[in-house]
């Protein structure tokens, strides 16, 4: 019985002395308790994923969706209407891979006989 009382006292003392929660760096004190969410930066699809996209005339039915999604990757990376000679190596090859697919859709889907031999 004495042991139980002693343990209870120890536990209660420990809780009283526990430090208050430390706020993570970057959070505003005023937002405490409002469940403020840290904005999530969108991530562009990787270059490897872009390169793996093999388009064919079967994709023409969803051409506009494809183009919208591909253009969105350029927007995320800040590569819209940027001259390739102004880019570093990684951005240049990413920009080329995305734009090549955008224009393949725009040209190929509207001109089905273009690439026929």
């Amino acid at each position, binding site marked *: 019985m004495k042991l139980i009382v002693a343990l209870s006292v120890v536990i209660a003392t420990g809780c009283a002395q526990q430090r208050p929660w430390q706020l993570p760096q970057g959070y505003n004190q005023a937002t405490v308790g409002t469940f403020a969410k840290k904005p999530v930066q969108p991530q562009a699809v990787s270059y490897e994923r872009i390169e793996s996209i093999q388009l064919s005339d079967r994709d023409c039915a969803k051409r506009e969706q494809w183009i919208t999604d591909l253009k969105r990757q350029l927007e995320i990376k800040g590569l819209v209407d940027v001259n390739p*000679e102004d880019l570093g190596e990684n951005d240049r090859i990413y920009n080329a891979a995305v734009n*090549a697919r955008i*224009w393949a859709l725009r040209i190929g889907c509207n001109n089905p006989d273009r690439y026929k031999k």
Partner: protein
Amino acid sequence: MKRILVIGLLAASTTVSAECYMRTQVNLSRQAVFGQPTDVHRIVTPETGGYRCSLQYRVNVNNEWHNAEGIGVGRTEDAACKQAMDLKNGALLADITPDRVSSNSQMVCLDGPEIKVRRVRIGEQIWESEVDVHTIPAERPYFKYKNTQCRMFVERNTREGNLYTHQGVICRENTTPGSKWLVVAKY
């Protein structure tokens, strides 16, 4: 007075400059020409019974742009220029070099702007022949994009000791003959 005259002559010589070429015997109708003559500059003069039309234009032969001239004669300006546009009446213009000059050489001086293949940037207005045609034959034909005539181009640049080949798209600004083109994409 003499100083004014000298300054005037110097100013005239710098503002009125034209590139001059030798008219060759190379008949365009027998060459591997891609597309139609482009970036056309037209000069029409009256002649007995009608008009004489001289068209100075750029033409792509064997994947390379050349200056050329076509001459036609007709009762109306349009008839004369239609004849001049026919490749049968066109001849390449070559740079003037000592080995090409002979007693019966014809020299042609271009009145329009000097057009050469050069580096371009997105959004620029250019002459069509300021960019090369695509190296891949399947990518050379013109196509329609947003109801406008367009084509692909390639551009070769060197940077930091490396050779880069970029490709891009140019589209005609409007349907007016001789209109410029807009660099829509380059990547």
